[in-house]
C-alpha cells in the first residue's frame, strides 16, 4: 500500500545544508589553489574555478531531475542501471581516452566524463536491490558468490582501466554487508587474506612458513588448552625439522631451506594427524587446512607478483605499501603536502595567503590534494571544521538509513555511507601521511565535474528515497 506525500516537504534539510556548505567550501578552496595575479575574475571559465562553477550549477539541475523521478524507478531499474554501467565501463576500456596513464575517460567535445565515478551509484543500487530481495539469505554460499560478483565486476573493469584508486573504493561496500549481518567469519577471513597478502610481499617465504606454523600452534593452544597435546605437536614439528636440516647438512645436499621446511612440515603434520585421530583431538584438520591454505596463498601471491605482474605494476604496489620509496613521486607528494598543511599553523595564512599550495609544489592541488589548501590557508581551525562537517554528514546519513522503512532504501543508504566514508578517510588520510597515496577525490571538494556529479546523484537519490519514506505503509 502506498500513499502520496509531498516530497518537497519531507526533504532532509540538514543534509542539504551540509552538502551546500561542503560544495561552497570546496569551490572557495579550488579558487585559492588556482588563484594568481593573472586570473582574478571568478567567472573566468578558462580556469578551473570558473569551470567548477559550471559543474556546480549543473549538479543543482541534476538534483532537480533526481527528485522528479519516482522512487520505484530506482528499485525496479537497479539491475538495468547496473548492467548499462557495466557496458559503459567496457566501452571506456576500448574507446576511452588516456589521462595520466589511466584509460578511464570519455571525451565528448570539450567535456571529459569519467564513468567509473558513476559506477559506484549503480553498484550501490544493485547491491541494495539484491540483498533486500525477500528470498535472499545473506549467509549462504550462493549469496556470497553473487554479492562478490556485483561488487567486484565493476571494480575489476576499473582496475583494467588502470585506475587502482577508484577500484579499491569497492571494498567499502563491506560496511553495507556488515550492517546487514554478513557473518563475522567472512570478515575475519578477509582480514586474514589482506594480512597474508602484505606479509607475502614484505617477508621471505621461509619467514612466512615459520611464522604461520607458530601462529597455527598458538591458535591450537588457545582452542584446546591441553599442554600435553600442544607439547607433542611442537615436539614432532621441531624434531622433524631438525632431522631434515641435519640430513641436508651432513649429506651436503644443498637443498633450499624453503623446501626443507615445507617437507618437514608435511611429514610432521602427517605424523600428528595420525596421532590426533588415535586420541580424538578436535580442530586439527581445520587448523591444518588454514595453515596450508595460508602457505599456498602467500606462495601464489609471491609467484603472481614476481612472475606475472610487470615491473611498473610491482612498483606501484610496493610504493603503495611503502616498501619502495620514490623520491620525486608519491613520497615526495606526501612530504610537500605535510609541509603545506603544517605551515598553516593554528589559524592558517588566510584566504589566498597560501604559498605552498601555489606554484605546483603540491601536485594535483585542486583535485586529490585539495585538503592541503584548506590546511594551509585556514589552519587547524579549518581542517577541524571540515572534518567535523564530514563526520556530521556521515552520522546524519547513518540516521537517515536507519529510519527507512524499506530495506532497499536502508541498504542503499549504507551504500552511500560506505562510499563517502572511504573517500573521505583515504583522501584526507593520504594528505597527512596516515594512508597510502591512492588517487581518489575528496567528495564535494575536489575539482572535477564527474566526481561532483556522481557524489551529488549518489547522495540525492538517498534523500529522494528518504523524502518518500512515509509513503510506504507497513
Amino acid at each position, binding site marked *: 500500500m502506498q500513499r502520496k506525500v509531498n516530497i518537497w516537504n519531507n526533504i532532509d534539510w540538514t543534509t542539504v545544508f551540509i552538502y551546500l556548505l561542503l560544495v561552497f567550501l570546496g569551490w572557495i578552496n579550488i579558487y585559492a589553489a588556482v588563484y*594568481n595575479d*593573472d586570473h582574478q575574475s571568478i567567472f573566468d571559465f578558462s580556469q578551473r574555478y570558473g569551470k567548477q562553477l559550471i559543474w556546480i550549477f549543473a549538479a543543482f539541475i541534476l538534483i532537480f531531475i533526481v527528485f522528479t523521478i519516482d522512487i520505484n524507478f530506482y528499485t525496479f531499474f537497479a539491475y538495468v542501471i547496473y548492467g548499462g554501467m557495466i557496458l559503459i565501463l567496457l566501452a571506456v576500456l576500448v574507446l576511452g581516452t*588516456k589521462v*595520466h*596513464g589511466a584509460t578511464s575517460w570519455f571525451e565528448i567535445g570539450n567535456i571529459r566524463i569519467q564513468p567509473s565515478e558513476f559506477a559506484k551509484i549503480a553498484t550501490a543500487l544493485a547491491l541494495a536491490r539484491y540483498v533486500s530481495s525477500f528470498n535472499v539469505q545473506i549467509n549462504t554460499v550462493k549469496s556470497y558468490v553473487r554479492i562478490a560478483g556485483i561488487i567486484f565486476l565493476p571494480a575489476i573493469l576499473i582496475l583494467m582501466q588502470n585506475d587502482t584508486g577508484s577500484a579499491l573504493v569497492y571494498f567499502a561496500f563491506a*560496511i553495507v554487508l*556488515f*550492517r*546487514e*549481518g554478513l557473518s563475522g567469519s567472512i570478515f575475519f577471513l578477509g582480514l586474514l587474506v589482506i594480512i597474508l597478502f602484505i606479509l607475502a610481499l614484505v617477508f621471505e617465504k621461509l619467514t612466512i612458513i615459520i611464522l604461520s606454523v607458530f601462529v597455527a600452534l598458538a591458535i591450537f593452544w588457545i582452542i584446546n588448552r591441553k599442554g600435553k597435546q600442544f607439547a607433542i605437536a611442537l615436539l614432532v614439528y621441531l624434531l622433524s625439522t631438525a632431522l631434515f636440516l641435519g640430513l641436508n647438512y651432513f649429506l651436503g645436499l644443498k637443498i633450499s631451506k624453503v623446501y626443507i621446511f615445507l617437507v618437514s612440515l608435511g611429514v610432521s603434520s602427517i605424523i600428528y594427524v595420525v596421532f590426533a585421530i588415535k586420541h580424538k583431538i578436535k580442530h586439527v584438520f581445520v587448523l591444518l587446512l588454514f595453515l596450508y591454505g595460508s602457505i599456498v596463498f602467500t606462495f601464489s601471491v609471491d609467484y603472481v607478483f614476481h612472475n606475472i605482474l610487470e615491473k*611498473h605494476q610491482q612498483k606501484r604496489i610496493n610504493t603503495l605499501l611503502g616498501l619502495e620509496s*620514490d*623520491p*620525486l*613521486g*608519491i613520497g*615526495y607528494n606526501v*612530504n*610537500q603536502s*605535510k*609541509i603545506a*598543511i*603544517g*605551515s*598553516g*599553523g*593554528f589559524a592558517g*595564512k588566510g584566504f589566498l595567503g597560501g*604559498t*605552498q599550495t*601555489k*606554484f*605546483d*609544489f603540491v601536485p594535483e592541488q585542486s583535485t586529490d590534494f585539495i585538503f592541503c589548501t584548506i*590546511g594551509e590557508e585556514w*589552519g*587547524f581551525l579549518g*581542517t*577541524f571544521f571540515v*572534518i*567535523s562537517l*564530514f*563526520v556530521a554528514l*556521515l*552520522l546524519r546519513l*547513518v540516521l537517515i538509513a*536507519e529510519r527507512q522503512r524499506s*530495506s532497499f532504501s536502508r541498504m542503499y543508504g*549504507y551504500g552511500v*555511507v560506505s562510499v563517502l*566514508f572511504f573517500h573521505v*578517510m583515504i583522501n*584526507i*588520510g593520504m594528505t*597527512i601521511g*596516515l594512508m597510502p597515496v591512492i588517487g581518489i577525490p575528496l567528495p564535494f571538494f575536489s575539482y572535477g565535474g564527474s566526481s561532483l556529479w556522481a557524489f551529488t546523484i549518489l547522495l540525492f537519490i538517498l534523500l529522494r528515497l528518504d523524502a518518500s519514506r512515509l509513503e510506504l505503509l507497513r
Partner: protein
Amino acid sequence: MDSFAGRKNIIRFLIILVGLIYIVRLFILQVVDSSYKLTASNNVLRYETQYPARGLIYDRNGNLIVYNEATYDIMVNPLQLAPFDTSEFCSILEITKEYIDETIKLARAYSLYKPSIFLKQVSSLAYAQLQEVMFKFPGFFVQPRTLRKYTYQNASHVIGYVGEVNDKIIENNSYYIQGDYIGVSGLEQSYEEFLRGKKGVNIYMVDVHNRIKGSFNSGKFDVRAEVGSNIISTIDINLQKYGEKLMQNKIGSIVAIEPSTGEILALVSSPGYNPELLVGRSRADNYYKLNVDSLKPLFNRATMAQYPPGSTFKIINALIGQKEGVTSQYTTYGCQGGYYAGNFRLGCHIHNSPLNLSQSIQISCNTYYCNVFRNILDNRNYPSVRMAYDSWRNHVMSFGFGQPLNSDITSELKGLIPTKEYYDKIYRTENWRSLNIISLAIGQGELGTTPLQMANMTATVANRGFYYIPHIVKEIEGNNKLDQKFYKKNYTTIDSVYFGPVIHGMELAVNGEPGSGSTARTAQIQNIIVCGKTGTAQNPHGEDHSIFIAFAPKENPQIAISVYIENGGFGGTWAAPLAKLMIEKYLNDSISQPYWEEYILNCDLINKNAKKSQHLE
C-alpha cells in the same frame, strides 16, 4: 527480522574514531610540531631537483667507453620574472632579444608555475660568467645536467643513445619531467633504471627577492640524489672496433659470442654511425640525416635484419636427422650434380661422391640434405608429413629460432620458422609433401633468421647442445647479479653425442686438404682449429648475401661468430676470411696474415654495387 540493528553503533563508532584520529593528527601537524613552520620573512620554499650523474659504461676489459660531461640548462620560472637588463643577458648567452621574448612566451604558455627550459646546454664558460651576475635576472636559474661522451666512436648500436623525454613518456612514468633525459635505444634503454640513478630534491627557503636564505628545516625533507650504477658491458671494445673497421664499405653485420657464457663480444651493424652525433645541440639535425640515409645506419641489422640462413642450416638438419634416427654419421649418399625426384631437380656443384655426414658438411652437398630432410619428413614413425614437420620445427625452435631470444638488446626480430598451418594455407591442403618444401633442406625458402640467432646457433653447436641467452651486459655495479635468465642453460632437443660428426664436418670445411672440396679454406688460421660453415642467402633483389658461421678453437671454444655481408655472393669469398680475422684478433690479438686484412679492407661492395646498378639503369 532486523536482528543486526546493533551493528549500526559499531559503524557510528568507526566514523567518529577515524574523525578523532585525524583531528589529533592534524593538531600535532599544525599546532604542536614546529618542524613544518615557516617564518614570515621567508615564507616561500624552492624545490631544486638534483640530477645524479648517469652510470658509466666499461667494456669487458675495463676500458671506459661512455662517460659524462657537465652541461648547464638555463631554466625560467615565468611567474617570478621581473624586468632585467636584456643586453647583458644576451651577450653572456650569445642569444638575441627576439629569442628571449619568443622563449618566455612559450614558457608562459606551457605553465606559469612550472619551470621551462630557456636555453639548453650552455658551455661551462658561459655558466661561470652568468653565475656571478645571476641575481640580476630574477626568474632564471641554472639546472646542471650531464651529457654523454664517448671514448670510442664505435659500438653505437650496442650502447644506444640518450634523448629527451617526450610527452608520452612523461604521461606514463611519473619519474620523468619535461627536460629530463632517458635511454632511447640499446643498452642505454634496457638498463635505464640502473644507469639513471635516482633524482633528489633540495628544499630551500627563499625570501621575497628570490634569494636563498638557507635549507628548509636543515634538510630534513631533502632527498639525496643517488648516482647511477656503472655498467660493465660484455663487449670487447677493441674487437668491436676492429669488426667495424673490417666492415667498412660493406653492408651487413657481425655477431661474436662467448659460448661458455652467452656474452656478446662484438656486435657490428654496418654501416653504423658515430655515437657522438646523437648528443648535444645538433642532435636533432644529425638524427634526421641518419634517419633519411638510404643505407639506414640507425637500423641494427644484427638483431633486426632477417635473412634465410642458407647452407649453414645444413648443420641443423644433420643434427635433427640423427636425433630422429633417419640418418647417422655413417650414412652416405651419392651426388651426381644434384638431387632428382621425378621432374624435380635441385642442383649441386661437382664434387667427390658418395659422401658421409661429416663430408657432406665439409663440402656442403645439397643432394645429401635433400635426402636427409625428406627422410625426416617422410618418417614412418609419424602419422603424417605434417606431424613429422611439427616435430622438425620443434627441434629447430629449440635452437632459439623463430622467436626473440629475449636478450637485453631492446629490439630483436623473431625471425620465421613457418608453422604447418602456414603451409596448409599456401598449398590449400593439409596433404602437402616433403618435396613441396624441400628448399628448407638447404636453408632457403620461407626461413628467416637474424645474425644474432645465427651466432647463438653457432655457440650452441660449440657447446654441443645448449646455449645461454646472448647478452650485452656483464655486470651492474652494486648489483650482484643480472636477470636470472642469463645464467640458465637452455638445452636443445638434440643430444650432445650427435654434435661430434657435425663439428668434425665443420672442422674439415675449414681445414680440409687443398682439392678436397672444403668450402671454407679461406677461414684457416695457423695453430688454431676453426670450425665453420659457409652459407649463401638467396636475394631476389640482387647479388646473394654472403654468410659464414664459425667457432674456435675446436676444443674449449672461446668465440662463436656469425658474419653476414649483403650482396657478398658466396660465403667463402668475403664472410669467411672476415670471420677468420675477427677470431684471430680475439684469440691472439694479432693478425698472422696481414694480406687478408688488406683484402677485406679494400673490398668496397657499397660503391661497387651502386655503380653496377647505375649501369643497369
